[in-house]
């Protein structure tokens, strides 16, 4: 197989963005090639972000009194 036959013709074509009538390509791109900070960065870096694991803490609600045991059931009647 010839070397040039492996290439897809569209890939080798020059990048010529077509002008979209409704959404034209901006003259000065504002986001591309710019560093955008994450909105959730401060809360995550400071440990204040709450994950599901932080809210629904299983070990806090139901903790076995045995060091090593097998769960046999849960008595939920009094909780209702």
């Amino acid at each position: 197989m010839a070397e040039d036959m492996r290439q897809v013709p569209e890939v080798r074509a020059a990048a010529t963005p077509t002008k979209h009538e409704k959404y034209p390509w901006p003259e000065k791109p504002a986001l591309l090639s710019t560093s955008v900070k994450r909105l959730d960065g401060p809360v995550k870096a400071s440990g204040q972000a709450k994950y599901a694991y932080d809210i629904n803490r299983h070990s806090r609600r139901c903790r076995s009194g045995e060091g090593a045991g097998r769960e046999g059931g849960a008595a939920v009647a009094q909780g209702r």
Partner: protein
Amino acid sequence: MAKNDQGGTDLSRRSPEAKADETGTVSRRDFFKTVGVSSLATSVLTAVEAEAQATAPRAVGPGEVPIRLNINGRTQNLTVEPRMTLLDAVRNKLDHTGSKRVCDRGSCGACTMIVDGRAIYSCSTLAIESQGKNIRTVEGLAEGTALHPVQQAFWDNDGLMCGFCTPGFVMATVALLEKIPNPTPEQARKHLDGNICRCGTYVGVLEAALKTKGVSRG
């Protein structure tokens, strides 16, 4: 045993023990010897046990016991079971959920805290043995809305994605910079290799560790 000239046994010259052995009875001398040794052994063992009890750590539990922890400069009184880890005590008893429990076996570093200036795995440290030590968690770094320089660097250098491992990385980085203010990339890699990030933000974390300035000893 004394023998006479004819080769026979002279009963009159034998010791009382020998007589008692032959007759199968316990002599008065044997009786007092036995009682003396027994009482001596009992008194020695009692003294050894008392000394061991005085020097050994006091046994507590298995129920909850009151402890006092110094966390982020504040003294916290709480009751925990002796088996409870420092991470569980801080998360479940004090509601400081910044430190995460991921592997729970001291390999991922998401639970990293700084205890007496050293970064430790709080999932592998008992709360009861952390009494009297200066414990710092990620909640104690920021002052109000002002982030700690390390936290700011993590944000600036995109050193986080999902953020679940970030508190551990932040604490490990703070411990590194308090020990080595201007680390080389090799030193930073070595000190942070106890933490794992599944999102793969290691490049950003390393940049944050190397670019952070102004971290003083806590």
